[in-house]
């Protein structure tokens, strides 16, 4: 049974999530609320925990339809990368972001995110 599929989905206006086991997460909409960490941090942590428990080698995160985020929301991806960096080699997995190169925040932020964990972050820009 996929732990990833069991992760509880957050409720947030203008934002939605779809999880497609074994290892695909789609984020859609806009995140521009005051403290996105308060609403979404536990969800992102849940995804990370589930990926470890499922012993996934790779998690695909499709953000192509996440059209706008504020900088506090970018922090969620920084945190996920930090958790990933703290894993030992045997339990680590690759985080593959599917991005849309026409969307500026995706083009700029994910390339910089990759500098934090070059071996663990892969960007597929379409």
């Amino acid at each position: 049974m996929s732990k990833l599929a069991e992760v509880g989905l957050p409720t947030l206006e203008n934002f939605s999530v779809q999880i497609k086991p074994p290892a695909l997460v789609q984020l859609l909409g806009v995140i521009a609320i005051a403290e996105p960490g308060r609403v979404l941090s536990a969800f992102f942590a849940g995804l990370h925990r589930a990926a470890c428990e499922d012993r996934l080698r790779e998690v695909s995160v499709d953000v192509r339809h996440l059209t706008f985020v504020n900088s506090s929301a970018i922090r969620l991806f920084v945190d996920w990368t930090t958790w990933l960096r703290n894993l030992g080699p045997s339990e680590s997995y690759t985080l593959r972001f599917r991005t849309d190169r026409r969307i500026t925040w995706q083009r700029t932020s994910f390339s910089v995110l990759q500098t934090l964990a070059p071996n663990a972050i892969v960007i597929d820009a379409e």
Partner: protein
Amino acid sequence: MARALHWASLRLNRRLQTRRGKALQSTTNTISSKPPRPKGPLLVSVCFRPVWAYIDGVREFGRFFCETTFKQPEVAERARVVLQETLENAVKYSSPSDDSRLEIEISSDGAELQISTLSHADPKHLQSLREEIEMLRRFDPEAAFIAAFARAAREPGAPARLGLARMRFETQFELSVSEEGEGNVRLTAVGKL
């Protein structure tokens, strides 16, 4: 009440100066760099209480305005990011009082776009904003954004503080901060059209 009158006189003063075609100057001492001269005529000015609920509406209005005025979707997207981050900054650090006001202005001379916020903030915030901008300006926008990511990664529980660096790198707008009157902080972003 006194602050409300101060705001009204400040705005009137600025308007008169703009009409006469003069550069806008801060009314009192400038702490950091001088406020940049407005880039051409004032196109949009919106004044509201600095609460989060207004941000989405003002941001999207500003985006549509830029899209229809400048006919470049890419400029509108950059303006959207600047509006979001400057408004967030002003709302987060505005003094919590009933007569507190936040004013956003958009102006352009056809070559550059200027977006600025004016709000009443804690003096400590003005100082930290000034230091943050000075630090950012020592680096090129990409290097500063990478440094801000690294800092956020090192300090997991702390505020992200990515907004200003993001604005510079993602939108290629340059930032400055100045004080106008007692405790009124103007954060200005200027970028090429």
